């Protein structure tokens, strides 16, 4: 992709081009593109006058930043302790099988990215699955399949 310099400048200006806000800028970029495109990192480093390696060190260190493009919907399966104990791994397996992807990857049609998280803070509803803003509590393998259908519906495949 081409880095949209206009958009990136807005982000950089928001922090007055202060390098110590590198992480915050990268988070904003991630929010804009749903991942951190290489071109955006290059542009950012140029503007802030920092080596590319430094930005990559930060991008790869933090979990919430991703260098890979993501699908239209990201399915977050919680594997925090409460969710692990109440059957989270089985839910993850079901998604992997039904979507035919490995955790961390995106389906071929670009519709779903499957990811795990370490607690979404609603442990009472374990095992928890989050798709976009929507949470699905006390998930079972059967409703994992329903979740896929819910977000498939109305979408071209």
């Amino acid at each position, binding site marked *: 992709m081409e880095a949209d310099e206009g958009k990136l400048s807005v982000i950089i200006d928001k922090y007055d081009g202060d390098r110590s806000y590198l*992480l915050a800028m990268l988070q904003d970029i991630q929010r804009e593109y749903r991942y951190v495109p290489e071109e955006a990192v290059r542009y950012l480093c140029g503007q802030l006058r920092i080596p590319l390696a430094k930005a990559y060190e930060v991008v790869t260190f933090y979990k919430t930043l991703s260098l890979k493009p993501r699908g239209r919907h990201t399915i977050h399966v919680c594997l925090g302790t409460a969710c*692990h104990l109440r059957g989270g791994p089985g839910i993850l397996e079901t998604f992997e099988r039904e979507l035919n992807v490995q955790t961390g990857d995106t389906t071929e049609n670009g519709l779903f990215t499957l990811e795990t998280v370490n607690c979404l803070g609603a442990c009472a509803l374990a095992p928890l699955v989050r798709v976009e803003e929507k949470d699905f509590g006390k998930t079972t393998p059967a409703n994992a399949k329903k979740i896929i259908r819910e977000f498939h519906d109305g979408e071209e495949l």
Partner: protein
Amino acid sequence: MMASRERLYAIGADYRKAISGYDKIVKICCGTGCISSGALTVYDELQRVLSKRGLSSKQILVKKTGCHGLCERGPIVVFGDDEILYQNVGKRNIERDIAALLATINEDKIEDELLYKGDDKTKRYMSSFDIPFYSGQTRIVLSLNGVIDPENIEEYVGYGGYKSLHKALQMNPMEIVDLIEKSGLRGRGGGGFLTGFKWRSCRQAQGLPKYVVANGDEGDPGAFMDRSLMEGNPHGILEGMIIGGFAIGSNHGFIYVRDEYPLAVYRLSKAIDEARHHGFLGRSIMNSGFDFDISIFRGGGAFVCGESTALISSIEGKSGEPRAKYIHTTEKGLWGKPTNINNVETWSNVPYIIDRGWEWFQSIGSDRSKGTKVFSLVGKVKNTGLIEVPMGVSLREIIFNLGGGIQGDKKFKAVQTGGPSGGCIPEEFLEIPVDFDSLTKLGSMMGSGGMIVMDERNCMVDVARYFLKFLIEESCGKCTPCREGVRRMHEIVDRICRGDGSMGDIEHLEELGKAIQLSSLCGLGQSAPNPVLSTIKFFREEYRTHVQEKKCPAGVCKNLITVSILPERCTGCMRCAVECPVDCISSEKKEIHGIDQSLCTKCGTCFDVCRFGAVKIS
């Protein structure tokens, strides 16, 4: 706008006047748990129906609050000053429940169906004061959670907020430090370090400017106390930090919150804006001449960033690698300047101590652990949620009285405290008082307050493997014992779970664990072996069975179990077949079911859903 004492009273008075104009107050819990169960729909529907009707002769205030505690039974709706508590509102039938809420609002009619039911299913509890989950608690930092609208500063002030700040600003900073020290408050972020002592070293440290930081990273999986505080009562944290800043001699505060907590970030930002607007933040706070401001820093979701030196690197815009602590952060922290980091809950305690005095705080809790502690009680317990208890109450009290015992009346097996740095505590120690020192003595930890209850269907070796895997992923990789050692421990435990364990593995794990504890650079590595060492200590037999007999008594480790259906018990209800994720259960209605062993992934779902005990795991 400058806030003076008069202004503070005026805000409070305005609020009380506004509130007295309402006939009914309806509080809808909009903490993360309840939102996940559909609380926002309940709120929107109720508002819609109320405004459409417009006929009610009564003035009704419907407000969104932070977590009320009983997340398992959310969405929670509370009337007045907790006189009526409804649970599971809108879960089964939203229209019927909205109608019930209206009937309560208009005619004071109580809907039995929505009340909390006791264990025997006959007793219903009307008010939260009577429900054992609540009546066993002492709420200090949570006292306004679930009560006030966190997005409205007037409510906070109306309930006495920022009064302590005003009081503190009349005091001598050193007097405040003394008072916090005498109260016995210890840090709630895990280590249990004496807060007043830390403040004193930071106050006395050379160098300007000084910084105060609230650690709201909360990387512990299965813990949501800090999040609930940030979402439910953000001003309480701000007030604590401003007082701390004044006592220490700092004009700059940071709150470090992880990016995965968007609601917490939003509510904290809003609170900061409102506090600034009313003159509780900014220049010459409450006309005292003291300047202080707070910014939010969004972390990137790395567990190690909760560690204080890593957190500092992270705020400085670097990756979050810890450094050795020869020099304390109180002397050289953020940008090389004296920095005082406290956990969010620690800060929240401060206004209460200023308000009621150190003697009061000191009178709560156990010998060397003063005050209360907030726990997130989760796992296989009936009432999962957020609780606050005086330190020193027993584990049994927490799990069986407040928590209501084990789900499905299964057998209690262990409780895990302290997250990845802690350990598992078995039944024989249920009577021990929960405080910093007793938990440490058992090889576990208070940690930040996650309490995860396990039953007979949880395998302790699997739990150990779970934490090791978590820690491998979260280790920053800077030092060898942690980077390589924890990985090696995981390999061994994983092998045991897969049925390839050999004699000597357990002893090897113990040796390796001790070496890692002694030689790692930061707290992550130093405590990483705890989950393994404590499970070996208390459940050695379970390890031995895995290694020698190649069996998993809890029925979790896949290579060591088979799942089958007992023909004599199966009723042919088809429940298991519907839930089986790989459709490997042959089924005809009313016929005995069978499992195709070649396809079965041994997930145990059929076991968990069968109501007739017809599934056997062996």
